[in-house]
Structures are given as structure tokens and as C-alpha cells.
């Protein structure tokens, strides 16, 4: 992927610019002070608010800002016409993340129970065991890739368990999801191929669960009802697609960024080792400072927002990560304050689309950091310049070699 250099970020930003992916903070600071809602014609055209207040307002105004397309780069024509079977489920998208009310309301209710704190606690022992066995695999070597060899390995296995799918599919899942959300963002062929593979696989799983229902999310969705009728099967397929796609890159990026930060901040590491009760607060601060997810919205009618003339159909990039670094909302916004007491971050969004998987993500972050620090309290980046990052829809480290005594 190549991108043209950016001269003016307020009128021509590029979320796939390599320097921006590596470190977006200077751009956000510049935009917040000046613009503060930037515009670009690149990648299908979009607006990008960067102040907390603007993200807060737009996310909550679902009447004017629809979720019908939440990808930060639009699907190109190839996705529909390059010989892939376009699944019927595309017509329902990936509910509820791609839904507006009223469908959103019941589609979301279906997920809230299985993703509540109490339901998610069921997966904690398995997650902890997984982290331990991953660490067992590299601790004697004195080095590891904390992104690819650890963070990236955790969420796909947990979501596989939730879907009732063998854990050895995890690497395949990871490949598909990266194809859809990472490499496929700027290449519609890759995206279409990844989506097609995921849908085909999930359709087989659904057929299997219809014959042999189990104690898993797919069987649960098939057995669920809306308005006294079974949830339509394309809807089940779309929601399973969401569970697979939304629960992998996102959380592994958060875990990776957290370990990246801690690798470079021995004081924070030492404090978390000494004061384990601080971990939940620290997780919220790491979520604020390294929020991985940017979503999109579609403007539903011509309107003016913050002096910007937006037209129906325009796309708005919901830069929650930028909002969470807004100094107007957070004192010392540019610093990680590991015990930050007041932290109303919106890493999981705000309003009716609050990430339904937030309790799962928090649990995976907490457990994976706890287990890492319990075994590897002292470590550092082998070469800070060698860390590679992905960005766009989901930002986080993809390769992060670390060494430890």
C-alpha cells in the first residue's frame, strides 16, 4: 500500500499514512487546536472530528449519523463484482453494530446477556490458562514477540470457545479478520475474499448447530426469538460475523499497546506488580491512551455541524482515540497516568452503540497483563524502531520483539 504524502491534514488527511499510523498524536493535537473537524477526499471521502465533545455529540445523534456502514474505508466495487459470492447476510450487515433503531434495539438485546460481566466471568479461567501456556512457550528463550506471539493469540481463541469452535481455528480466524479489517481496508479484493471465507465458514457452523445444538453463542442465537419468532437466519449469520470480526483485532491491539507502554515504563510496571488492586483502573487508562478502534457513521441528511456543511451520504470517521487524548477533557491527556481516577473515556464508544464486547475486552486485557507481569515483571523492547503498527480501523502493534532477563 502506498499513499501520497499529506501536506495539509485539515483538508487532506490520510488515515493510512505510515507516520500517522505509527504516531497519530501530533496530527490530532494540530487538528483539535485549529479545525477541529477535518475533511479529506481520500479513501472515499470523509469528515474526522477530533475533540471529545464532537465525538460525544455525533455518536449519540443516531438520527443524523447512521451506523449502516461503519468501515473507515468504503467497500470498493471489486467486493461486489470480483466473482465472490456476496452473502445474503450483507443485506443485514453485521447487526447490531451496523444497525440503527429500531432493529438495533432488539439485535443488541440479544447480545447484552451473554456479554454481561457475570456471563463473561465464565471465560476468565480459560483465558488465564491460555495466557500461562503461551508464556510457557517462550519464557525460557528470554525473548518473545509480545504482539504476534502473545497478544494476538488470546482473543481469537476465547471467541472461538464462545462460538463453540475448536481453538485450532484461531490462526485461520486471525488471517481472515486481518484480511477484512486490516489489509482489506485499502484493497477491496482482499476484503471481499476474507468476508466470503468468514461467511462460508459461519454458514457451515450454523447448519451444524441446527442439527447439533450446543452450549455456544451460535446455538444461543439460533434458539433466540424476536417478537415471538426465531431470529431470522441471515441475522444470526450477520451477528456471528460481528462476533468473529469485532472481537479479535480490537482486543489484541489493546493488549499489545498496553504491553508496549509497560515495556517502556518500568515505574508503571513496578507499581502494578506492587499494587495489583490498581489493575482495573490501569486498564481503563491504557484503554483511554491507546484506544484502538475508529468506527464510521453515515450522515443521513444535509446538515451543518461545527461549521461544516455535511451532505447526506457523507461519512464521518469516529476517532474515539483522538477524543480520548483531548486536553479539554482530560488533564495531562498526553500522559499515561496509571492511577487516573477520573477517566470517562469513550474507547468503547458512547451512546447506544457502546461496544457490546467491552466486558470481554476488559477481562482479556486485565488477565493477559496480570499473567504477563506475574511471570515477566521486567522486560523491554528489543528495538523500539522495529515495532510495527497497523492502523485505520484498528490501531495497535503487530510485531513487538521484547527481551527479558
Amino acid at each position, binding site marked *: 500500500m502506498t499513499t501520497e504524502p499529506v501536506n495539509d491534514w485539515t483538508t487532506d488527511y490520510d488515515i493510512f499514512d505510515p507516520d500517522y499510523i505509527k504516531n497519530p498524536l501530533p496530527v490530532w493535537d494540530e487538528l483539535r487546536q485549529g479545525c477541529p473537524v477535518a475533511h479529506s477526499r481520500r479513501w472515499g471521502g470523509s469528515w474526522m472530528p477530533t475533540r471529545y465533545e464532537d465525538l460525544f455529540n455525533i455518536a449519540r445523534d443516531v438520527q443524523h449519523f447512521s451506523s449502516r456502514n461503519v468501515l473507515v474505508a468504503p467497500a470498493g466495487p471489486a467486493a461486489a463484482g470480483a466473482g465472490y459470492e456476496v452473502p445474503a447476510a450483507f443485506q443485514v450487515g453485521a447487526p447490531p453494530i451496523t444497525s440503527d433503531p429500531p432493529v438495533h434495539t432488539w439485535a443488541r*438485546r440479544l447480545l447484552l446477556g451473554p456479554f454481561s*460481566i457475570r456471563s463473561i466471568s465464565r471465560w476468565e479461567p480459560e483465558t488465564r490458562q491460555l495466557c500461562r501456556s503461551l508464556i510457557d512457550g517462550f519464557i525460557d528463550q528470554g525473548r518473545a514477540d509480545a504482539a504476534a506471539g502473545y497478544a494476538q493469540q488470546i482473543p481469537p481463541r476465547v471467541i472461538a470457545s464462545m462460538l463453540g469452535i475448536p481453538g485450532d481455528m484461531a490462526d485461520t480466524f486471525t488471517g481472515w479478520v486481518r484480511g477484512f479489517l486490516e489489509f482489506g481496508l485499502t484493497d477491496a479484493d482482499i476484503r471481499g475474499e476474507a468476508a466470503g471465507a468468514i461467511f462460508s465458514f459461519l454458514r457451515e457452523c450454523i447448519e451444524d448447530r441446527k442439527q447439533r445444538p450446543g452450549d455456544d453463542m451460535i446455538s444461543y442465537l439460533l434458539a433466540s426469538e424476536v417478537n415471538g419468532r426465531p431470529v431470522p437466519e441471515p441475522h444470526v449469520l450477520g451477528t456471528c460475523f460481528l462476533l468473529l470480526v469485532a472481537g479479535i483485532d480490537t482486543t489484541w491491539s489493546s493488549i499489545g499497546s498496553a504491553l508496549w507502554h509497560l515495556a517502556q515504563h518500568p515505574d508503571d510496571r513496578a507499581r502494578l506488580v506492587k499494587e495489583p488492586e490498581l489493575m482495573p483502573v490501569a486498564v481503563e487508562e491504557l484503554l483511554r491512551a491507546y484506544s484502538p478502534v475508529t468506527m464510521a457513521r453515515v450522515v443521513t441528511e444535509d446538515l451543518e455541524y461545527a461549521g461544516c456543511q455535511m451532505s447526506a451520504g457523507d461519512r464521518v470517521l469516529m476517532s474515539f482515540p483522538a477524543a480520548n487524548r483531548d486536553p479539554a477533557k482530560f488533564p495531562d491527556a498526553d500522559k499515561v497516568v496509571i492511577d487516573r481516577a477520573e477517566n470517562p473515556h469513550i474507547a468503547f464508544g*458512547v451512546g447506544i452503540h457502546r461496544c457490546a464486547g467491552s466486558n470481554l475486552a476488559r477481562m482479556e486485557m486485565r488477565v493477559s497483563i496480570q499473567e504477563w507481569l506475574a511471570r515477566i515483571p521486567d522486560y523491554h523492547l528489543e528495538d523500539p524502531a522495529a515495532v510495527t503498527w497497523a492502523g485505520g480501523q484498528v490501531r495497535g502493534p503487530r510485531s513487538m520483539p521484547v527481551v527479558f532477563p
Partner: protein
Amino acid sequence: MIRVRVDSEKCQGHNRCFNLVPELFDLDDLGYSHERNDGAVPPELEEKARLAVANCPEHAISLEDLKEA
């Protein structure tokens, strides 16, 4: 004596209040929050009640001072 209130119209189930002060908040089966004990805040939890207000991204939590009310 202060009392804490959760606005159920605003709560989106972030669970920040419950994670911070489970003594004051409880969750329904879908993860939406409500106050325990009709919102009564014992003096030793007042500071934590204020933190719950400050951490709610939806501005769904408020405090009322029963003396003033």
C-alpha cells in the same frame, strides 16, 4: 447524607460505576446499572460515589444532597 441516582434512560451499560463501587450499584441481566439501597450513600463511600459520577461516559449518574433537598 447523599444519595446516588442512575438515569436508566441514559445508562448504556458501560459498567464503570459497578466496577468502581459495587457497594452502591448493581446490574440487571442485560448489564444496565441501578443503585442499591435506594441510592443511599454511607459517608465512607461518598468519595467513591463522586468517582462513579465522574467516570460515567454517558453522564447517567447524579448525586443529591438530602440535607439540601
